[in-house]
């Protein structure tokens, strides 16, 4: 049994994902501080770079307080579901081209599932449980509001998320994410890279907006709107259980930025890199770097938008989801079909 | 190697469990869940036949069953919640307005 390769991959990806989450938390805080013209964390380590480690240590050491009226079992289960869903989604995302190591080609993807996109949609569907159950089991009205809002929000935006991907699936003709990335090779007119963001601009925008809603980031952070709901679904959580929610939120952000990169921004493709005549290993590493750079751009975008747009009101959120996003993404499917038919005629 | 009959026995037992639930429980939501169990056991049989006979049509039927289950979940739960709102109970023995 060749179990060693997947185990090493899982270990590397899991480690990288958790480290990246910590870094993104810090980046978020620093960048927010910059936007708001303040310092941000600057006490722990040089320039505050150790802040995330200090936070983790603090969260682990803290007492785990469970409300007396809470449903203990579900209260414990909810953060576990959240973090599991956030971390397992990354399994089907390819983060690099095949890499030649020790005389063998390795695929840089943990599980090349041939229904990868559906797997991701299924996993985001499971993500609803974490938030809903957390809100319900705390037995606190603010938590319950947060939980109910989050499930309504996730279910509404999951639809337009799935539908905005159909255009990409139609162009690539496959549900396998690795194949979708590979289908974005090549150039139009010899210089425009064939990325889906260019052929599917409307799908890209709807998916991007829906991914904000799915990760509960501003302007869609109604499940944890501080002025109205205290802390939303995680009001009654403390210690490492709160830490898991916090971590899963940032892991979700990383995963969705990786997904946007893979599906719309050409994944690990680096335009014209093949023509530079580099060593295959260097080229493969460069491609991983390109993937991470694109992810970084998307994450920066998340942070900028967080401090640019105010929070939606609940009815505005629902109106946007059902009356704008859904019709637009359905129209996008139709338009893609018509154009494809016209091009292949 | 697991033969086909084991899958069939498994789904038969699952179907019977669901049937017991439908017949004996009084809470409308539990009855609802038991119906889901029965539908799932049928799906399992269909996929088992499809897999063992090498014919995809069985898997196709599963999708239609799932569609009906989804429609049933939406309408059925809406009815249950509407009844609860009016009578404050989901006990099937107390929902007897039509049994005059």
């Amino acid at each position, binding site marked *: 049994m060749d179990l060693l390769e997947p185990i090493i991959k899982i270990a590397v990806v899991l480690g990288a994902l958790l480290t990246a989450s910590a870094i993104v938390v810090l980046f978020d805080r620093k960048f927010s501080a910059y936007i708001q013209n303040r310092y941000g964390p600057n006490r722990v380590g040089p320039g505050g770079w150790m802040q995330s480690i200090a936070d983790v240590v603090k969260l682990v050491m803290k007492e785990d307080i469970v409300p007396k009226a809470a449903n203990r079992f579900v209260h414990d289960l909810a953060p576990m579901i959240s973090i599991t869903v956030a971390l397992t989604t990354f399994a089907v995302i390819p983060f690099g081209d095949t890499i030649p190591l020790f005389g063998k080609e390795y695929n840089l993807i943990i599980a090349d*599932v041939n229904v990868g996109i559906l797997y991701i949609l299924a996993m985001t569907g499971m993500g609803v449980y974490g938030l809903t159950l957390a809100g319900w089991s705390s037995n606190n009205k603010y938590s319950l509001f947060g939980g109910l809002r989050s499930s309504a929000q996730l279910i509404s935006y999951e639809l337009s998320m799935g539908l905005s991907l159909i255009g990409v699936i139609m162009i690539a003709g496959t549900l396998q994410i690795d194949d979708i990335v590979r289908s974005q090779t090549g150039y139009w007119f010899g210089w425009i890279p064939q990325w889906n963001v260019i052929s599917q601009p409307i799908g890209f925008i709807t998916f991007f907006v829906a991914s904000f809603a799915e990760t509960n980031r501003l302007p869609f952070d109604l499940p944890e709107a501080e002025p109205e709901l205290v802390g939303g679904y995680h009001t009654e959580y403390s210690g490492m259980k709160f830490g898991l929610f916090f971590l899963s939120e940032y892991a979700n952000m990383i995963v969705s930025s990786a997904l946007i990169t893979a599906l719309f921004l050409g994944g690990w493709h680096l335009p014209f890199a093949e023509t530079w005549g580099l060593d295959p290993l260097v080229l493969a590493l460069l491609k991983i770097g390109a993937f991470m750079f694109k992810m970084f751009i998307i994450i920066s975008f998340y942070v900028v938008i967080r401090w640019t747009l105010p929070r939606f009101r609940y009815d505005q959120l629902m109106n946007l989801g059902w009356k704008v996003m859904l019709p637009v993404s359905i129209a996008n499917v139709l338009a893609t079909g018509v154009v494809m038919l016209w091009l292949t005629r | 190697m697991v033969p086909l009959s084991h899958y069939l026995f498994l789904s*038969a037992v699952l179907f*019977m469990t669901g049937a017991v639930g439908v017949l004996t429980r009084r809470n409308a939501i539990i009855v609802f869940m038991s119906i889901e169990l029965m539908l799932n056991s049928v799906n399992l049989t269909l996929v088992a036949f499809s897999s063992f006979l090498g014919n995809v*049509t069985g898997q196709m039927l599963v999708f239609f069953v799932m569609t009906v289950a989804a429609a049933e979940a*939406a309408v059925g739960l809406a009815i249950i919640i509407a009844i609860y709102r009016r009578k404050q109970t989901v006990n099937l023995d107390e929902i007897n307005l039509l049994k005059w």
Partner: protein
Amino acid sequence: MDLYTISFYMFAVLLLGSAIVVVFSRNIVRAAFALMITLLSIAAFYVLMMADFVGIVQLLLYVGGILVLILFGVMLTNRQISVDIREGAIQTIPAVIVTSTIGGILAGAIWSTAWPMREAARSVAATAPVIGEMFLTTYLLPFEVASVLLLVALVGAALIARRERKS
């Protein structure tokens, strides 16, 4: 005993155990969780039989959709979560008779039929393209009827659940 057989029996125990909890549990929340485990193990069986598309749709639709609705139903209709919702078993004897009759007939049918001893599909062949092809050719009419059914269900559920306006 290879890995396939071991996982079959493991998931079989999980499936039946959780199904029994669904049916006989006194706590409705526990029943809903047990149903989640049941649905997940059904998905595992689909994957064991190499029906990857059906398996993932099971996750997407049942676990991610229908069960969320059921949980909503549980939360909205149950104030006290620890309340005993059994309210006495009814019709136990007729239920046992009916179920054992069904079980007997099924078991007899399964025993007496000579099933083709073909092995289950063990190779990874993409079933999604085949199923998609069949939906849009041979089974086009049922497919469209199913979508109409879903639309009707959507409208109907919205109509029932809407709070009545006081006029």
